[in-house]
């Protein structure tokens, strides 16, 4: 079954066309990356799939549910991590995980879910400290943990390692990779093309609101005779502007 089906999707904010007639599909269990520079339309696309924004045109389906009609159903099976997300600063890390788990946990699974969150966050004793005392890296680990602990069918991660140092970024990437073993499909966005190359099974390159190329990283590299995805992106942008 397809996890995500996007067809002819467009979204504008006033005069600005953030997303222009894009289309792509994500298969169940894969890690799919949307890559592109800032302002390419990645976050808008993710927000539409996460039911936060409504499309102007086109159709978006998540596991067969339409984002316009079945928002509540979709929110039961997805977990969304915004790029600059925060958490409730007066709660402790554990209280925050418990707050989120109460929305998702089926009967008797609550403690198991929180335990999994604590394990993913790897914050040790600091999990019982107030979130207001956390560093940026600790906060991001907590947020990644709350996103993945609920075993969503689709996890939508917007720039999951944004602002993290190298050590924390590697740790978060490993957590994301491991989560697919539990059956979670991952849709992530990043402007760090090396990160996407490391993580993703398939990618779509976005520029100026359009998808300019899509495919497996290895296939794209050989197609454009490039050493890495960064070089692919430069070539693709050049070709699309001619």
């Amino acid at each position: 079954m397809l996890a995500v089906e996007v067809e002819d999707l467009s979204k504008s904010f006033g005069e600005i066309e953030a997303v222009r007639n894009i289309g792509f599909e994500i298969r169940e269990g894969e890690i799919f990356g949307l890559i592109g520079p800032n302002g390419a339309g990645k976050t808008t696309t993710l927000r539409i799939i996460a039911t936060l924004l409504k499309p102007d045109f086109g159709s978006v389906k998540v596991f067969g549910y339409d984002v316009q009609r079945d928002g509540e159903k979709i929110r039961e099976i997805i977990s969304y991590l915004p790029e600059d997300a925060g958490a409730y600063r007066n709660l402790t890390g554990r209280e925050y995980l418990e707050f989120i788990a109460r929305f998702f946990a089926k009967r008797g699974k609550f403690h198991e879910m929180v335990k999994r969150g604590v394990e993913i966050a790897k914050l040790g004793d600091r999990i019982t400290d107030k979130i207001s005392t956390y560093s940026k890296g600790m906060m991001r680990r907590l947020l990644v943990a709350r996103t993945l602990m609920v075993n969503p069918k689709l996890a939508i991660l917007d720039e999951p390692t944004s602002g993290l140092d190298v050590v924390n970024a590697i740790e978060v990437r490993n957590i994301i990779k491991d989560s697919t073993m539990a059956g979670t499909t991952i849709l992530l966005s990043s402007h760090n093309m090396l990160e996407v190359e490391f993580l993703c099974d398939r990618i779509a390159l976005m520029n100026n609101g359009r998808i300019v190329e899509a495919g497996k990283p290895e296939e794209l590299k050989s197609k454009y005779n490039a050493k890495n995805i960064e070089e692919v992106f430069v070539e693709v942008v050049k070709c699309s502007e001619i």
Partner: protein
Amino acid sequence: MLGNIIKKELKELLTLSTLIFMISIAFMYAIIGQSIGKAVHETPQKVNIGIVNLDKGSFGELIEHVLKQSANVVYIGKSEEEGLRRLKEKNGVALIAIPEGFTQNILSGRQGELEIVWIMRGTGIADLISTGRVQGVLGMINQEIAKKLMERYGVKDPEAVLNPFTQKAFTILKEKRLSLSPAQIGEKMSSQTTLTSIVIMMLILGAGGSVISSMGLEKENKTLETLLTLPIKRSHIVVGKIVAASIVGFIMAVIYMVGFSFYLKGLVPSSPTSGVGTDIGLNLQMKDYTLFGISLFITLLAGISLSMILGLFAENYKSSQMLSFPIVGLATFSMLLTMFKDLDTLPTVLKIVAFLIPFTHPMIALRLLMFGKIQLVVWGIVYVSVFTGVIIFIITKIFNSDRLITGRKRRRATS
């Protein structure tokens, strides 16, 4: 799910520092009221005075007699200097000097003159109360001398001449005949209506401020996007925030009112408890209290909903505090209007404005119910309910739109 939202909201809004701040403000109110009350209470009924009597006539003796009964006379003699020295030693308030020929002057048809040297130790409340008491005694002396003069001129009942008539007042107030003067009614009702208006204003500001802060915190902490993608109905998020804000507002109002009632008790010991209805025959029944409760509850929801709409425009906690000004303005306007004016006596335009502001309705409800104007209270409840319904509908629409995330209206692409 709803309980989870309410619990989270309460944890975010009712922090230890917020509670300490609220209790401190209430404590300050209580301390101010109690201090004033203590100052009034501790001022002795009989103040210390001195008398310098240089008069040899009967009125000089009369003044001495009255002063001895009404005050503690710490000096009687002929020397002003000695009198002032004794007064300073004994914390006296005034030295009253009766000049030579005081009686003779009055008996020959001229005005007598008493010389009073006041000793003020400060400009505090207690100092002013003491001087006020001496002034009261001097007024009594004036009356006593007038009576003696009248007796001398053959008046049989000087009291009847000084007070030739008494008053037995009846007031017709909104078709009710009351055995009191308007001043007495005003005095009795003002403490009750003032307290009601203040309580309601505090409740609305407390709850409204909480919900605006809550929205501001969601934006500042960047938690709103996550909240909106959780598997819970958007309307439940709205209701959860409203219920939590009501609880916080109620707690705040109770804390502030405890402080405020101590403040009022300090100033006028009987005012908060003096029952208006029983004193002047305007009794409230159970159904009246029920209607008042409904009016208050609906208005609280209106205040919170209105605050939530404003909170949607908040970018962070700081800006959310600024956004509460329209609510503060409206609630204060209603409070002042209902404290100082009766709705019936207002010009039509102001009446309409007052009716359109939801906060006015519970503030005037008790007064209306006392005079049997149930219909107006019911119409008020209907109006505020419709008002609240419309506002909640708009909020839910906004929560289901792009506006909350983008801050803009959704526009269709032209392509």
